[in-house]
């Protein structure tokens, strides 16, 4: 049994403990430890990607207890992609935070490491209760990161975010309690075996469980009626933290995809529970995101609403659950995470130069480095709005193609193309305010602001920006990997064989 699947969890966990134990260290030493840990993690993530490419599901039995009694970690293509995405983002966010963000409060790097450990754990686990535990680890770290830097606005956002997520956790636990009570298992692969055998009397209860789990995951993914927390929270956090939070909505989407593709699609009575309403709510989320983008008075608020839009687009693919839609969704998820994460970092770079005006869309001092920052803005704006020729266009095209034959296809095409148009308009308007209308009367007091030396932030931005053309040029291998991932995810029996072995060999008592 190779120990590879547990490394992406252990590495940041050990680094976090190390950072806490030696918390009296100099800031420079903390930064070095944190960056080194994330650098190692990135290497491990690449090894995971390469290892998972052979198409076998690698199972890591914790304590060597056999599933379904013990807890397992699963490393398949989907987990490997998510771990790689998280690790890459972690490197960039950690670098960006060294430009001053990490000294605004205590223990920034330790919380960052805990957050990444929780994220990687959520992506690797094959057990639903373990998923809950990793959700709580990443949430607790995110509570601390959100209020990092202090101030009333963050405390206000923090209180509502914590209360909301505690309610979400309570729902999650209710779902898990009922699931174990009815099915007698919490292992994802075991669901495939147990679900088709559910007694007629228990079916209603299992449907309730599926719905509750979907609500919990969609709360994290910020779907329409329960997603209004997102812009509020993301704009309250410091900008590098907001950049990291981009992956947080993807955890909800990942969990829903994983659980519905492996588990709930296995039995007819749970397979089509999401289909009637999820696409419409996803389209509604995109529209609300468009309204939010139009109404935004700050650059950060625009990007936060772009995260809503990309979440809605991804959920369209989850609802459809075909090989084409899953591979489109994976490609879109990778590129939209990179692009929106980079946009938050770019907003940070711009806000630093504009002094008191910050990221507000008002007349401010002239931005130095018009060519570099302006060029970066143009690149990211093209990618995020889905205009050709960059990766956003390819991702959107794949999503549109996969939805063409579906019931909501026409509506989805209309809404997605409309949202692209609105995003282009808003980003162009914002750029003209930020880059082209500086120094109007009354703003002279800001004009003395000089470029803050921020090497960490600059390198993080360069790293994220470089990923955009790389993803565009390498679109063919990436989409081939995404396609193979979708095929793997839909072959449920392979998971059962890898995790459980022979399901008929397990003695199951009839539960009273």
């Amino acid at each position, binding site marked *: 049994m190779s120990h590879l699947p547990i490394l992406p969890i252990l590495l940041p966990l050990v680094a976090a403990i190390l950072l806490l134990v030696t918390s009296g260290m100099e800031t420079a030493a903390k930064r070095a430890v944190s960056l080194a840990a994330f650098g190692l993690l990135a290497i491990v993530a690449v090894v995971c990607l390469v290892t998972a490419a052979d198409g076998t599901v690698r199972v890591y039995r914790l304590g060597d207890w056999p599933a379904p009694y013990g807890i397992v970690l699963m490393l398949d293509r989907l987990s490997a992609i998510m771990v790689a995405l998280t690790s890459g983002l972690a490197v960039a966010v950690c670098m960006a935070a060294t430009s001053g963000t990490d000294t605004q409060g205590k223990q920034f790097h330790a919380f960052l490491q805990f957050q990444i450990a929780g994220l990687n754990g959520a992506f690797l686990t094959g057990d639903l209760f373990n998923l809950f535990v990793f959700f*709580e680890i990443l949430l607790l770290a995110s509570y601390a990161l959100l209020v990092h830097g202090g101030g009333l606005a963050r405390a206000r956002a923090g209180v509502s975010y914590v209360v909301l997520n*505690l309610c979400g956790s309570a729902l999650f636990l*209710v779902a898990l309690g009922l699931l174990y*009570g009815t099915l007698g298992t919490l292992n994802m692969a075991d669901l495939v075996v147990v679900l088709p055998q559910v007694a007629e009397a228990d079916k209603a209860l299992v449907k309730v469980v599926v719905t509750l789990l979907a609500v919990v995951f969609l709360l994290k993914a910020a779907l329409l009626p329960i997603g209004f927390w997102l812009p509020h929270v993301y704009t309250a956090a410091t900008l590098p933290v907001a950049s990291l939070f981009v992956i947080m909505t993807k955890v909800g989407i990942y969990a829903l995809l994983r659980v519905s593709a492996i588990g709930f699609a296995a039995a007819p009575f749970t397979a089509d529970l999401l289909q009637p309403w999820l696409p419409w709510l996803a389209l509604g989320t995109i529209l609300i995101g468009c309204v939010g983008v139009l109404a935004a008075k700050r650059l950060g608020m625009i990007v936060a609403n772009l995260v809503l839009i990309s979440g809605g687009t991804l959920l369209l693919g989850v609802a459809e659950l075909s090989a084409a839609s899953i591979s489109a969704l994976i490609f879109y998820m990778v590129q939209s995470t990179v692009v929106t994460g980079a946009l938050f970092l770019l907003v940070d770079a711009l806000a630093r130069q504009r002094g008191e005006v910050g990221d507000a869309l008002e007349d401010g001092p002239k931005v130095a480095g018009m060519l570099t920052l302006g060029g970066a803005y143009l690149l990211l704006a093209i990618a995020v709005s889905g205009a050709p020729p960059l990766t956003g266009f390819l991702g959107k095209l794949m999503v549109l193609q996969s939805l063409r034959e579906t019931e909501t296809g026409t509506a989805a095409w209309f809404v997605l193309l409309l949202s692209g148009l609105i995003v282009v308009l808003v980003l162009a308007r914002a750029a003209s305010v930020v880059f082209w209308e500086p120094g109007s009367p009354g703003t002279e007091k800001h004009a003395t602001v000089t470029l803050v030396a921020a090497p960490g932030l600059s390198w993080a931005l360069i790293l994220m920006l470089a990923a955009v053309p790389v993803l565009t040029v390498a679109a063919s291998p990436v989409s081939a990997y995404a396609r193979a991932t979708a095929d793997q995810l839909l072959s449920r029996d392979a998971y059962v064989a890898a995790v459980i072995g022979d399901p008929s060999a397990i003695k199951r008592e009839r539960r009273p």
Partner: protein
Amino acid sequence: MELLVSLGLGILAAGGIFLILRPTTFSVVLGLTLLSYAVNALIFFGGRLGASSPPLALAGASGQTDPLPQALVLTAIVIGFGMTAYLMALALKAKGESGTDHVDLGGDQ
């Protein structure tokens, strides 16, 4: 027995939800605590109701109860306790900064 337990869980959860919807942070914290009691009890009862059956295979015992919900509920209690403690600290900090214990902290945005 089943009716009594279900009613008890329902009343606990209803009380919790009522308190969560109150406008002061203190009642929200109390509400979340009540709700988590209800949830923990629900997980515990997922192992079926029954008296004097041990969670281990003991010689001479007349049957045994499922040990897994007991392990799950322990984890859930610990996590819930930690989260509530954090929320309490955050609410106190927010009250110190804003001077009010209203959940909106006296702000309108």
